[in-house]
């Protein structure tokens, strides 16, 4: 996956799904995204780590539902009309794993280009730097491209 990212860096463009979490915009690598669904009833998993508090049924598969807002210290909003679940597929320890990610809003599928990529600042952020792959500029806004593998491990 990192290799493919390097490739995209060279060609300069990267397809992303832009989602909103709290006040921030996050860009998820479109290659990871399997589908985007409306909120479904969740099942709480007692004793699970806080950022994967529950599981959901997606087409007959029971998959974990992750809450990125917790990882970035954001308040958990109630589900609204805009809330969606983005189902992504990741490689964890060499095995593909489907994970649902709650998004307060899904904006669009778009492209961000290499020239827009900003160095992750070392100061001025209260997020853990390892959760962030890089920060890009998109339509006069800064968007975060999260490192999903790190966040979910």
């Amino acid at each position: 996956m990192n290799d493919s990212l390097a490739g995209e860096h060279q060609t300069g463009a990267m397809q992303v799904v832009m989602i909103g979490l709290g006040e921030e915009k996050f860009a998820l690598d479109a290659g990871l995204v399997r589908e985007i669904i409306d909120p479904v009833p969740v099942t709480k998993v007692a004793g699970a780590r806080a950022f994967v508090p529950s599981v959901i049924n997606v087409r007959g598969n029971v998959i974990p539902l992750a809450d990125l807002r917790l990882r970035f210290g954001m308040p958990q909003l109630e589900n609204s009309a805009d809330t969606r679940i983005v189902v992504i597929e990741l490689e964890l320890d060499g095995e593909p794993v489907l994970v649902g990610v709650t998004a307060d809003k899904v904006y669009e599928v778009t492209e961000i280009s290499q020239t827009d990529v900003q160095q992750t600042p070392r100061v001025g952020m209260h997020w853990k730097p390892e959760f962030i792959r890089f920060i890009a500029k998109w339509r006069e806004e800064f968007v975060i491209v999260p490192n999903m593998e790190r966040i979910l491990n």
Partner: protein
Amino acid sequence: MSAMDPTEVFRQEASELFEVLEGALLDLGQRPDDRELVDSAFRALHTIKGSGAMFGFDKVASFTHEFETAFDRVRKGEIKPTQELISVALAAKDYIRTLIEDPQSTDDIIGEAILDDLRRFVSADQPAAPVAAIAEAPPLARAESKQAGWHLYLEFESHILRNGSNPLDLLEDLCKLGPCFVVPVTDGIPFLDEMEPEDCYLKWDVKLHAACDKDAIDDVFMFVQDEMKLTLSPLAQIEAPAPAPLFLLLDEEQVPMAEMAAPVIEIAAAPIAEQPVAKAEPKPEAKPEPKAEAKREERGIATVRVQAERLDELMDRVGELVIAQARLSQLAASGSDLSIKMIAEEIERLASSLRDTTMGARMVPIGSLFGRFRRLVHDLSRDLSKPVEFVTTGEDTELDKTMIECLADPLVHLIRNAIDHGIEDNATRAANGKTEQGRIELAAVHSGAQVLVTVKDNGGGLNTARIRAKAEEQGLIAAGAVLTDHEIHQFLFHPGFSTAQTISALSGRGVGMDVVKRTIENMRGSIDLSTRPGQGTTVTLRLPLTLAIIEGLLIRVGEGRYIIPLSAVEECVELTAEDERSRGRNFLNVRGNLVPFLRLRELLTASGSPDKHQKTIIISTGETRVGLVADQIIGNHQTVIKSLSKLHSDVTIFSGATILGDGTAALILDVAQLVTLAQSKVEKQHISEAA
């Protein structure tokens, strides 16, 4: 389905034959006089050679030919199948297997060495052999060997050539037995315009002037005997008619001697496996091998090879169907339409029988697995020079095929342990007044919805004191802590725990028992150890019948719904107001027995206030009975097990999840882990109180 690669077909066939061959060889080690075993080994060899040549495995064919030649002397009763000979034969079998499966990895030199060994064994016995052979050989063989020869009449079915069989090759083989006088019988040949060029119209009349026995002739026609008529009679110039009751395979009955004008042997197209076995089998456990083989041949037509993935796929579909059916049932139950209810019930019935059938199709008798260990025991017992008798029972016990695959490694480990650590060396055994031969029993038996697989040895038993000392040394327990033997034995499952004083090639590295335990628990099974000093150790694996679908009890705790495997549930009782009141003692009185209970609401951190009438589900795990207090018991639920993802692998109290009728996911409680968790919580509490 696309046509299978013929080489692949051969490989598959060969691997089955290897199993037969290995089984027969190992049995032969125990019952050297059993002719049936020699024959079955020989048949397997012969088929490997034949089909090997047919599919272009020339090396296999030529090696097997040499092997066969050597083994032929065993078959003729000229030499006895000694343990050494069997070891070499097993090595030869392994060599053929590598030749077929991975020809690059072998060297001709190895093959030559094995053949040399074989020849040495075979010829070493030569001087003494003839005397022994006559003494050993049954009267039947002796009578036959006196005959001057045989008169054969061969009639093949007309389509024989289309199957790739060539009668001329067979005749050539026959001529190798001795001088033959072959006359083709041409009266069956039709006129040219009626003649099918691919049909065989010739018959043959053969006089074989050689004192070979009937088996040798049968062997020549082994592959085509279903498609031919072979009439066999001794040549006229014999001094006396053969007195032995020769087999007449018509109607599988032996015709009394008196009715036989001339001892004619007819081989009709009857399955050879039906041969009446006159010999009484000495040991009951010796039975399964030949019997299973016979069954396979009988059922040949009725079985279909199916790729394992297809069965898995079918199981997935059935799982989805069961989920959809549960939703339908729920919908029907909430409505008032009677006809919909009827259909829902009908579908429920069909889905459940479809589920059973599908699961049945995935069931494999565990005997296929047990067979593999005989070789292991044989080799280990030789390497460690500990004579071991290996007994298996319950080979017919069926288990899901995925479970059988998962079981192989743990069982290898347990058997190794039993031989290496369990069975004492000869001197110790003698000193303790035990028989020189150790004994390892591998048994499988159904017990309710579980299958119990036990590995039992009659060795020295576990050394509890040494395990304890080791546990103290590794800091797992405080010195002087009061523990039951059972608790001490649990340390054996601790990663990196080994009490073996020396590290051998086999064991002592402390890697193993923890892996065994984990594998078994991943299958939702459990492992028990019981031991009696000086008398041996028994390891019992309790396994569910299948991995895919279980019967579950659906309960509600707060907002959440959970499944308890029904196999663990003993009974359900209501929590009385009295039990409810006393918060200090969490005990129930179940018909005079004291049963501790756990509040699921606390363990599962449920929100909201508890229901007024709490229910208790009494479950059993291992030897403990525990009550689980829930808000509501919803009912029986066909649970299709979905595994939890890696992200939840740290949560041990759930063994998986399932999908309920309304489409939400529900978690399956792992009762054993739940009890362990509760225990550790209590312990922590005690420690913090003490501090």
